[in-house]
């Protein structure tokens, strides 16, 4: 059974790109165009990882993370935030945006757009693999 990844982003083109990329890396992808849709899909299918954009209409990424944490069915699913907002690189001091984001429940990692494709796939594999709920998984 391939690992399930739910992609929540309001940019249709980017959803498509991520789906193509992750499918070719062996993941099963589904997508949602905003936080509200993402929440209901997450609750219905309990994916292994959720990729969340922050700035979205309807329900934004921060609200989505909080809603996911509130629901027992989705609370333990790791979240990867993909955002245009600045992300602190290793060895750098955290800025205030990043500090705010770190307070979001369930967020395992943040990456800034545009991202490096290989790094994205590596990160997804890592997050799915180390998820205690996820069994053997990819990577370590």
């Amino acid at each position, binding site marked *: 059974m391939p690992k399930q990844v739910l992609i929540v982003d309001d940019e249709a083109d*980017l959803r498509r790109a*991520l789906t*193509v*990329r992750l499918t*070719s890396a062996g993941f099963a992808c589904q997508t949602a165009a905003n936080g509200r849709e993402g929440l209901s899909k997450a609750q219905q299918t309990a994916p292994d990882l959720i990729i969340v954009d922050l700035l979205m209409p309807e329900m934004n990424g921060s609200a989505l993370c909080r809603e996911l944490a509130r629901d027992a069915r989705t609370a333990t699913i790791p979240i990867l935030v993909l955002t*245009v*907002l600045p992300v602190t690189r290793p060895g750098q001091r955290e800025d205030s945006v990043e*500090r705010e984001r770190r307070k979001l429940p369930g967020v395992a990692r943040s990456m800034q757009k*545009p991202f490096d*494709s290989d790094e994205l796939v590596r990160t997804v594999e890592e997050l799915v693999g180390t998820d205690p709920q996820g069994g053997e998984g990819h990577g370590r």
Partner: protein
Amino acid sequence: MAQRPEDEQTTQQDLMRHARGLEERNVELRRINEELQRLDQLKSDLVSMVSHELRTPLTTIKEFTAILTDQIAGPISREQQEYLGIIKGNVERLTRIIDDLLDLGKIEAGRVFLHREFVDLAALVNTVMRSVRPLAESKGIQLATQIPETLASTFADADKIMQVLTNLLSNALQYTEAGGQVTVRIEEQANEMHVMVEDTGSGITQEDLPRLFEKFTQLARPAAHRALRGTGLGLAISKRLIELHGGRIWAESEPGRGSRFSFTLPVYRLEEVFRDYLRNGIEQARQSQGRLSVFLFVVADYQNLKVRYGVEKTGRLLQEVERLLESGVRRHSGDFVVSWQRGEVALLLLDVNKSEADSAASRLVQLVAEQEFPMDDATIRLTCAVASATYPDDATTEQELLGCLDEQLARGGHPRKRILVVDDEQKIRQFIKEALELHDYDVRTAASGPDALEQLKADTIDLVLLDLVMPVMNGYEVYHLLKENPNTKEIPVVIVTATGERKDRALGLNGASYNYVTKPFDVEELLAKVHALLQQSNGHA
């Protein structure tokens, strides 16, 4: 010199007209200034918005390019591969321009704050050198450093200096041909550190030199390496970052021979560093609506110790005190400890509020008092006085906070407030005494009104906690005796009553305003009241 009346009149009229003109011009200037500020804000918002908006389509372009390159959508020819590589390179360049624009916008809007710390400049240079080495090797350029063996540590924002160095080195590599050399040199001078990046490249013409640090300067010299092509903003950013540090940056060049880019970083005295640090900490606390506490520990008899043991040994002793204090506090990355040779250790703790500061101060003084310091085959013990001040409770600027410390120390180096607890019930006296002592108040007790008045005559008391119902003399009587006496009338008083005991109105005492705490009281409530009143009376003093 005599003036004819009509001349005088003309002069006066002239002056008045002139003054009116000036007034009008001032109004106009103010208006223009406001308009400029508004435009500046608009520009900075626009830069930030546009930069974020651009990232989204760029992400999609980059990702689909990568999907094609990785042949996920099917096999492609070598030529197609090459063209996709060009798209990728340009997407990356656009991303860099956006990053730089955002950076510059932030700096120009004054929203960049330095996180300064002691930085080993040599190590920092080596880190940057390592990161550009692969590129240098691929271009056949030799890298070298000339750094003195011992180098005072610099007080700077490591991330920002790294950014400047990376920028200067990338430029140097960009304009240097295969077989050339790029050297980083550091020289320590009286009041500043000089960092130089030298190349043996094509050089810069005399007319280009002054424009180098302006925005979007593209020079009429061949960019040697496509992947390295700059954004036109790197040097403008570097200039601002160095200037934020209080340094200078400039370039020299001999066309055909090479260029040298130099910047300076001021060498700080410890006290300036500490003030700077404090200012930074305050700014951070202001932004996050947090708190910050600053402490000053003064070793008692330091001058005598110096005389007895000599400057060097006493200096080492002070360093041990510094280490001890450092180990005794919870460490945030922004915390800071520094000692001065006059026998003081200053301590800065982020996210520490007033009551935490009070308890930390007494805990640390205790820590020092309990420590045995080895000195000339024996051990000695030290006592120190401590003062502490908290942002924003005590003051909001670095100057005022340090002023608070001086003031406290001048008052005898004993910031502990003395409280007199007056209650006829021994158990309650004891309970309140213990609760207050836990929060580092110096607590006296009195079992009756007359007893309290005796103690107030003999001792300095900062605040009185007064039971209302007592035999011999009740709380109101004590209160009014205190207020009638010029020596004690300034002392804040809290009256402790059980519900229903308040009789001020019934007794016709409603003229005075009393501070009440109602029994059974909450210790936190009592402490808050005590603290607030002491703060107020501090303000009056």
